């Protein structure tokens, strides 16, 4: 893979040039005590002091609310305003962790499964992902258990790895990445061939993925197992909403008087309403069944049908969970049990 070097000064320059150019730049910034992605106006806003951002980067391609089309009722006639693809901005997404970047593959596999979701794909196409390798990890990280690693290039267009002297090793992963480098070629230097591995965080493997994949289906009918696992789960949607691969959505019409819009917004299988039928019947009656769905979807249905694991080991769900439903720990118990 081709490598370049971006000095710390030219890194800042690159950011300024991107902002002043045709791209909008989205990067991690400090939002009070947290770090999250925001559109930024200056390089100073960016922070590097984070394990992962609170929210995943998925909203660049799969925003939490997406207006699919607008409508207006006039004199008993309905007029529709189609989605405006021109409104999708060209975006550079900076500071994405390798786990997050890997998540786009999962999302894409869902949004392009039987038919292609043009809005999603266009948003993703217009986004250049500049990843940032992890130098730190915490107790919730487990990317190495799902075939990722802190310096994984997959899903990135460029991957930066910060060296001790503050420069960035730049790996050019895709054509798109190469184009961006070409666009700002004057900022990139030749790589000195520094070793990347020692700069990366150590993320121990919590479980053996193949073991899970092999065993999880056999646990499906073990109601006691799932209900014990989900005993403390409160049934909120925090895990799904911060997850880089959760793709479930709801479709809502929002209207004021004669005008309105159809909106696609995030939804979560953890919420009891998710599967509630009009009849009152709920095929997933208890939290154990909903929790099972979450794990099965990621570790059985997606591998089976989409040939991809629906989890990138970012650990966000565990961090966001009010009751510490640590997914890695629960997965491990599938093997142990």
């Amino acid at each position, binding site marked *: 893979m081709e490598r370049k070097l971006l000095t710390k000064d030219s890194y800042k320059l690159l950011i300024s040039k991107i902002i002043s150019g045709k791209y909008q730049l989205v990067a991690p910034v400090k939002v009070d005590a947290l770090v999250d992605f925001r559109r930024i106006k200056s390089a100073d806003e960016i922070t590097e002091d984070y394990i992962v951002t609170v929210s995943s980067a998925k909203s660049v391609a799969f925003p939490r609310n997406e207006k699919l089309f607008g409508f207006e009722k006039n004199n008993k006639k309905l007029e529709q305003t189609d989605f405006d693809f021109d409104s999708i901005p060209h975006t550079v997404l900076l500071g994405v962790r390798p786990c997050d970047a890997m998540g786009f593959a999962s999302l894409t596999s869902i949004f392009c499964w039987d038919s292609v979701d043009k809005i999603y794909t266009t948003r993703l196409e217009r986004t250049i992902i500049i990843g940032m390798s992890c130098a730190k990890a915490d107790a919730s990280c487990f990317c190495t258990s799902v075939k990722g690693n802190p310096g994984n290039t997959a899903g990135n267009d460029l991957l930066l790895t910060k060296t001790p002297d503050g420069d960035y090793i730049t790996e050019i992963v895709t054509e798109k990445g190469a184009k961006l480098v070409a666009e700002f070629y004057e900022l990139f230097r030749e790589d000195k061939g520094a070793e990347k591995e020692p700069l990366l965080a150590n993320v121990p493997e919590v479980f053996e993925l193949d073991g899970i994949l092999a065993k999880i289906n056999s646990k499906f009918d073990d109601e006691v197992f799932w209900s014990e696992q989900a005993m403390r789960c409160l049934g909120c949607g925090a895990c799904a909403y911060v997850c880089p691969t959760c793709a479930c959505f709801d479709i809502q019409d929002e209207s004021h008087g004669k005008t309105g819009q159809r909106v696609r*917004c995030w939804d979560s299988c953890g919420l009891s309403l998710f599967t509630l039928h009009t009849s009152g019947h709920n095929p997933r009656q208890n939290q154990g069944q909903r929790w099972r769905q979450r794990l099965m979807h990621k570790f059985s249905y997606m591998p089976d049908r989409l040939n991809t694991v629906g989890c990138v080991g970012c650990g966000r769900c565990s961090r966001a969970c009010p009751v510490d439903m640590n997914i890695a720990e629960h997965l491990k118990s599938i093997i142990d049990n």
Partner: protein
Amino acid sequence: MNNIQQKTKELLESGACTLIIGYEKGTGGKARPVFVRKAEHAAKLIFDESCDQNIAGYLYRQEIKNESKKAIVANNHTLKSIVELASENQIHEGDFMVLAFTAEGEIIELKSFEEIEKHVATLYHGLNDEDKATMQKIEAMTMEERWGFWENEFSKCIKCYACRASCPMCYCPTCTVEINQPQWIPVPSHTLGNLEWHVMRAMHLAGRCITCGQCAKSCPLDLPIHLLTYKVALDSEQYFDSVAGTSVCANNVLATFKTEDHENFIR
């Protein structure tokens, strides 16, 4: 710490209890709720300062209601919530055992709602210094600043409803947000709908919020939404002398009235 393990072990061994709801050490050493059914697992249980999560909400969960002999390891927040939940007819005396702690850390069993009320009466009911300071800061702002502050906060809300799920007082099997005829709270998480949601949530907690702050602690985006319910709790106390979680037979502040209630804002 050991006395909780010892006590619960005895309860499980003797068969006095078949389930203990308590705390254990979770990821990164932070405390989390745990359900212990076997005496040999009693060693998992901890009780220390990190156990500040309000876990009273588990008491009315159907799975747990079905358990006949259960005990809950209750911190002060949980105790207050138990009182409030009892006053709202959601939990009933004798359905569970309550293990609490004296100021000295001694484990005690509170055998009746009356004993819990008495214990709760000895506890501090106000806000902590940090929250007090934040409240004062917000109240000192101009109206525009306050709006700006909350608009920014509400814009971050992703409507995961962790605040609702973790609040022991949010026990409705069908929440108003789940009603779509009419759609009181928009499903998408835009600022306008988020604002409506948080205002409604705070209003629904009028006279019921025991100021544990669990909603904010649970928020993945760290929104200071506990201040909204605190505001309502403080007003309930200031104007109507109602403090939630102190009396099993108290009437809700908005379910009662006095003919001489304040009305200087009414023309």
